[in-house]
């Protein structure tokens, strides 16, 4: 049980980087960016291929991030320069990336078993080698957890700084009110491109970390990732969000972990794994519709409260 929960937490943390990427496009830039599906697989493909070819896992991961940044750039250019609607721009990049990822990987999937990854490097440092962890059977898990927490923490730290800068402010205002932003002298096209690059860089980072964790990269692994990302963002927002930017980022991470715990739970309860995507889709649909439900529920709640007031 501990191991299942731990596995869910780790998966949640690794996916949290994708979720933060989705948060940046969906919540800050106000764009539903489907590039994510391609860039997560791209991160995995680049990291896997590089590691398989003998590259240092840290360099391989950085290379993966650069790949994602370029994917974001492609979508950004399609949208801002060629005036293709953002949804379609993302789809075009995503489709194109499928072929690119196949080329990068050289085949549909690649195992990384027994190869040096970021986690084995940390494992060699001695994390999880103590007797206590070994007895609990966490010898493999602890280094992964350490890396995941570290990566998420650094990402949150950097993003919090970035969105507090002049450029960060401009990016936020561009997503919220592009007309006002232009009238205040902000180049909204550049900001959209920048946001997409940051977002997809993070998503590819996530893909690289996931591939190394499961010791396996697959060009299909991005399928449905945008929905998983959205689900996590919404769960985080509904359950944990506070006002400050930092707390919102933390909420997004907690949302990603919560999503994985929910999935682990329903699987434990006997739901076939093949139904997962349907389950996720329905969850997201309900979550997106929450404001609608709320607007129906509020009047009912208020009328009940009023009646209670009258009787008391």
């Amino acid at each position, binding site marked *: 049980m501990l191991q299942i929960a731990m596995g869910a937490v780790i998966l949640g943390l690794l996916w949290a980087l994708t979720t933060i990427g989705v948060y940046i496009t969906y919540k800050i830039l106000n764009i539903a960016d489907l590039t994510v599906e391609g860039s997560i697989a791209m991160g995995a493909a680049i990291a896997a291929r590089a590691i398989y070819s003998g590259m240092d896992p840290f360099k391989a991961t950085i290379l993966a991030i650069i790949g994602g940044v370029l994917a974001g750039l492609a979508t950004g250019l399609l949208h801002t320069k060629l005036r293709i609607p953002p949804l379609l721009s993302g789809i075009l990049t995503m489709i194109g990336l499928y072929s690119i990822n196949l080329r990068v990987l050289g085949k549909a999937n690649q195992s990384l078993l027994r190869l040096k990854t970021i986690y084995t490097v940390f494992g060699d440092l001695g994390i999880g080698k103590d007797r206590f962890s070994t007895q609990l059977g966490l010898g493999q898990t602890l280094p992964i957890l350490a890396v995941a927490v570290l990566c998420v923490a650094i990402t949150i730290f950097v993003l919090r700084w970035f969105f507090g800068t002049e450029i960060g*402010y401009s990016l936020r205002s561009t997503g919220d009110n592009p*007309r*006002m*932003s*232009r*009238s205040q*002298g*902000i180049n*909204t096209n550049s900001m959209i491109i920048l946001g997409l690059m940051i977002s997809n860089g993070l998503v590819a980072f996530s893909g690289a970390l996931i591939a190394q964790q499961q010791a396996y990269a697959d060009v299909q692994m991005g399928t449905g990732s945008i929905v998983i990302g959205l689900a996590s963002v919404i769960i985080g927002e509904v359950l944990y969000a506070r006002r400050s930017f930092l707390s919102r980022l933390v909420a997004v991470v907690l949302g990603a972990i919560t999503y994985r715990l929910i999935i682990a739970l329903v699987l434990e309860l006997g739901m076939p794994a093949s139904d997962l995507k349907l389950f996720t889709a329905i969850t997201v649909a309900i979550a997106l519709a929450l404001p609608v439900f709320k607007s129906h529920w509020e009047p009912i709640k208020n009328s009940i409260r009023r009646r209670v007031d009258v009787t008391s």
Partner: protein
Amino acid sequence: MLQVKDVSKTFNQGTANETAALRNLSLHVKQGDYVTLIGGNGSGKSTLLNCIAGVFNVDQGHIIVDSQDLTGCSEHKRAKVFGRVFQDAMVGTSAQMTIEENLALALRRGMRRTLSRGIAPKEKTLFQERLKILELGLEHRLDTQVGLLSGGQRQALTLLMSILREPKVLLLDEHTAALDPKTAVRVLELTDRIVQDRQLTTLMVTHNMRDAIRYGNRLVMMYDGTIILDVKGEAKRRLSVEYLLNLFDQASGEEFPDQKALLA
């Protein structure tokens, strides 16, 4: 100062919806001019302001400020020169950001944005000082989200943002039209005070002929994409609403929409 030279703008050219919004329009606004711009619905007032600010590219003609031709220049680059307030109070501010964040964005209008802090610590006192001018108590609410403010408060804030970094020309497009009458008067008085105090070169669109006569030193009336009246100084002070209405009727062969309200 600001020269609009022989500008034409047609929307949806070559389709059934083709609309000539500006027809060979020329206007020369001098340094310190405070122009009120009136005209019926669809006469092209907003289009003129949008062409000046670079929201739309003109089909023909030039937009020149201080002998610098801005015609091909993109909107965000022109923002260095123009301060703007729009009719819709939602347009001029970022609802999700706080009052101070909005002001910080406006303080950097026309400047390179870098990776330094979005708000420098010493700027807060500047913002508080400036917000006091509005007399709305916003100086105590720097970290309030702008989305929580009323339309009038947002419009006053937008006005402050448009002049925080002094613009060469201030462009106001019916910026009090969507407010309730009492708030509209307050925002208009505030605008007048700011423009007079700072001697700002201003182009203010209004749908109210009385306001157009009361404020400013020059009045321009548009009809169907052209200027049909342009009076300054003493001649402007002697204008009457009746005269403007008559002129409008002559030009259009129809009655000015809010005529009765204006004469009431």
